[in-house]
């Protein structure tokens, strides 16, 4: 699956491996550990660490290398520590294998390591179990374990994807700091080109298992030589400057099965500047100035790729008030069972805001901040404990059946996880026309399929999808179906909960374009919940910042982002790496993260998957 990927990593350098999901970036890390999933094998080529062949190793030698010379920082810190062992026991086990025989010395070294990753009160921490730690703390522990043996190589596979943005920034900086301190080489695997350019010395861009471009981080981002790199860059919304239309790559990366009989350049079918020979000739690696290596026959064309030049329609002024929340709040009982004392927590407190017709409003905050509960309140999936909710002129606070019928044509919801939001046992055609099936007088199937076809066309899907099951669709397609279903009742407001968070940038750009088209064509309003500030900036005219269940700041997006008044907003903004690779990036210090007690999740949120 991976083809012609070559790199060398000098001691004390950081190499970034960047690619979208399915590009094969994780396979590189696994190949180094000789831990490929079943069905994959290294069929050719070489892999050396300091002169030692990593492909042909005895199991004993491999384990010895893993103990001392190669270390891994995982993607999901919360599940990568053994839940049945204390942190101390896990340190002790590893340090013992590193040859520290005395128990007291192991403890000293563990405390020293915890100090190096800026975890305070190490002695107490050693007695704790992983479930008592937050995700960020777990990742710090895992980083400390990784650097414990002063390894020559550390492989960090998406080490921040599962963490909140503010923590993400600190973890990335921590890895860079330890790397400088210990002189280790780091292989940093990520999907985020901008993030990689911040901490890496050199970057490799992967597409469909092939290294398409490689070069020094700063120059690679400044002047991408491969069309794909350029497209990736143009697909991501910016944090500064004027809003530009995103470049949405059509289609998606070819899957494993399609790769086998593909000829020529693997990117050619989607490439905006492909020429005839691209489809027949497999491009060789070519070196172009500044030690840059590009696998493209026509890399001179790359600079010519420009985003669609129609300027983005400035968000229209909001019309009449569509939705108004008046001091709305939601309290959950924790462990609430009859005849048992229960504590309560406010998932949403004293929230007041308005959304006008045709207005796009962003709602940002970290996981557990109450964003999703607020969405569920608006949609009547939870009943407000306090305050008032008015939608389309009707007070729907009580969430009665009559309120529900009213809401049907005013507001609909697009759910976060398209996997969970589409019933795997129903056909797409039935899913999108669900509204017509409900109630006492369902519409007959032929008519529904006709409407289903219209809806799918509206979100850019073909009518042939009607007879498919959700499992036969890609992630981006599923999210479109999700939107189509919400549109069926012709609502005036869409509530979208993290609908682009799990998707690759090129698919994300496609969906954002779709939402903008819906506003232009149908004047639809949107409550857009996201943790990604750049997406909110791109899409929304107004933004609400939520922290611990309360809205701490709201206002026009540009104003809030340019001159935020609340420290939490500033912290969120600081966590985003600047667009320009030269600008200094200074996220907030550790103390803020470690002092913040993790908010108790409401019962439902605890059961749902953590939002990324």
């Amino acid at each position, binding site marked *: 699956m991976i083809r012609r990927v070559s790199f060398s990593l000098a001691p004390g350098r950081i190499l970034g491996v960047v690619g979208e999901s399915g590009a094969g970036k994780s396979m590189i890390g696994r190949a180094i*550990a000789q*831990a490929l999933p079943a069905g994959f094998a290294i069929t050719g080529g070489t892999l050396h660490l300091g002169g030692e062949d990593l492909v042909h190793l005895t199991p004993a030698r*491999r*384990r*010895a*290398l*893993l*103990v*001392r010379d190669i*270390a*891994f920082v*995982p993607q*999901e810190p919360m*599940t*990568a*520590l*053994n*839940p*049945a*062992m*204390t942190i101390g026991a896990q340190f002790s*086990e*590893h340090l013992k*294998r590193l040859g520290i025989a005395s128990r007291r010395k192991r403890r000293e070294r563990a405390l020293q390591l915890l100090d190096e990753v800026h975890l305070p009160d190490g002695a107490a921490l050693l007695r*704790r*179990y992983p*479930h*008592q730690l937050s995700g960020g703390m777990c990742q710090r522990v*895992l980083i400390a*374990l990784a650097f414990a043996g002063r390894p020559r190589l550390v492989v960090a596979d998406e080490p921040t994807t599962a963490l909140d943005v503010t923590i993400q920034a600190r973890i990335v900086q921590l890895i860079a700091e330890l790397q400088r301190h210990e002189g280790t080489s780091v292989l940093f695997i990520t999907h985020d080109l901008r993030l990689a350019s911040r901490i890496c010395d050199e970057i490799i861009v992967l597409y469909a298992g092939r290294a398409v471009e490689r070069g020094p981080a700063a120059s690679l981002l400044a002047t991408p030589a491969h069309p794909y790199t350029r497209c990736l860059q143009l697909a991501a919304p910016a944090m500064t400057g004027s809003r530009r239309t995103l470049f949405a790559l059509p289609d998606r990366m070819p899957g494993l099965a399609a790769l086998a009989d593909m000829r020529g350049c693997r990117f050619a079918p989607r490439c905006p500047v492909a020429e005839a020979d691209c489809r027949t000739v497999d491009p060789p690696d070519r070196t172009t100035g500044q030690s840059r290596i590009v696998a493209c026959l026509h890399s001179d064309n790359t600079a010519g790729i420009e985003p669609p030049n129609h300027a983005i329609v400035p968000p229209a002024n909001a019309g009449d008030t569509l939705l108004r929340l008046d001091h709305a709040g939601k309290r959950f009982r924790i462990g609430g069972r009859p005849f048992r004392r229960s504590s309560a927590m406010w998932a949403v407190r004293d929230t007041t805001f308005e959304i006008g017709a045709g207005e796009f409003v962003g709602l940002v905050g970290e996981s557990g901040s109450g964003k999703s509960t607020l969405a569920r309140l608006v949609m009547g999936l939870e009943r407000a404990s306090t305050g008032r909710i008015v939608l389309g002129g009707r007070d729907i606070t009580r969430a009665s059946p009559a309120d529900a019928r009213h809401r049907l044509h005013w507001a609909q919801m697009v759910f976060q996880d398209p996997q969970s939001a589409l019933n795997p046992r129903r056909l797409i055609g039935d899913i999108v026309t669900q509204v017509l099936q409900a109630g006492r007088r369902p519409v007959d199937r032929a008519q529904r399929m006709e409407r289903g076809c219209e809806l799918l066309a509206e979100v850019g899907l073909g009518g042939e999808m009607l007879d498919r099951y959700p499992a036969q669709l890609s992630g981006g397609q599923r999210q479109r179906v999700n939107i189509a279903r919400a549109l069926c009742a012709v609502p005036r407001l869409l509530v979208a909960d993290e609908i682009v968070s799990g998707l690759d940038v090129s698919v994300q750009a496609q969906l954002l374009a779709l939402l903008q088209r819906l506003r232009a064509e149908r004047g639809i309003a949107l409550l857009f919940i996201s943790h990604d500030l750049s997406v909110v900036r791109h899409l929304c005219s107004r933004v609400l910042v939520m922290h611990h269940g309360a809205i701490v700041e709201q206002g026009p997006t540009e104003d809030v982002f340019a001159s935020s008044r609340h420290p939490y907003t500033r912290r969120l903004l600081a966590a985003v790496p600047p667009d320009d690779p030269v600008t200094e990036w200074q996220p907030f210090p550790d103390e803020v993260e470690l002092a913040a007690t993790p908010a108790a999740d409401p019962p439902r949120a605890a059961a749902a998957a953590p939002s990324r």
Partner: protein
Amino acid sequence: MTTILLLLGRRVLMAVPILLTVSILLFVALRLLPVDPAAMSMPPNATIEDVEAKRREMGLDKPLPVQYAIWLRDALHGDFGRSIQLRRDAAHLVTTALPATLQLALGAMLIASALGLGGGLLLFHVRGRPAEALGDLGTTVLLSVPEFLWALLFILLFGVLLPVLPFIGQLGPQFSVASVTGFLLLDTLLAGQPDAFVSALTHLALPATALGIAFSPAIMRVLRSSLLDVYQEDYIRQARLRGIGEWRILVMHALPNAILPTLTLMGVQFGFLFGGTLLVEVIYSYPGLGNLMVDAVRNADLPIIQTVGLTYCIVVLLIGMAVDALVLILNPRLRGA
């Protein structure tokens, strides 16, 4: 430690309403019976007036809730009524029979645990090999043999075909052992009668094995599937990436996590197992609660049925609590919350 005690205390408190409900259900179910306990306790030549008088004396003319209240009051004072058939104190009959049943159940649990955990590890070990399919099929077939078929099969095999083990009662007829604890294996040792101990042990062998073997395949399956689940976890992959050997991963990282769901299931299984003693006792004429119960049922001996039924429930609840306590001690997640 204190949190564990607190949680356990709460578990014990939770058992009280359950027991009360169970006793009410038992009481109501048995009052639906088309039998008249008063008439049954009278000689056959008693007149209708005598029976009526007896009914009043036994409180059977009062409304059901009042009858229950009286029963509950007496029960809390240790008076569970008298056996109509055996004309003995119900509480006494039960306490005499209980140790024998507990001994059988404990032996069976030991055998079920050993076979179940060993088999589970073996099934896990052969994963991905041809033997796995065989093992799978084997457990399905084993699951189809209930304890009473094992009991009968063992009698045919080791009692008739290869007469090596006794299959009637719990002690050879030539021995007589003073009852101190009620547990025969202990009493024979306390009385210094090693021959009797061996006899008691051989008498226990077939019933305990029959019962234990019937409950082992479920344990095998759960341990295997828990281990398979645990091996999918990130922390196992991460441990491998830290260069830890396979053996240590199994013992130190996988088993402590996989044992928790296995233990939880074993708690439920051992509850069923305790009920299973009844049939095995009947088949092996083993003098425990089961034979007491079946005799009482055949004779509609209500006080005994009620008391023995309640005893079964109490023991099942105790088994549940013991397993919960063990899971609590082994699972840091439950403790630290």
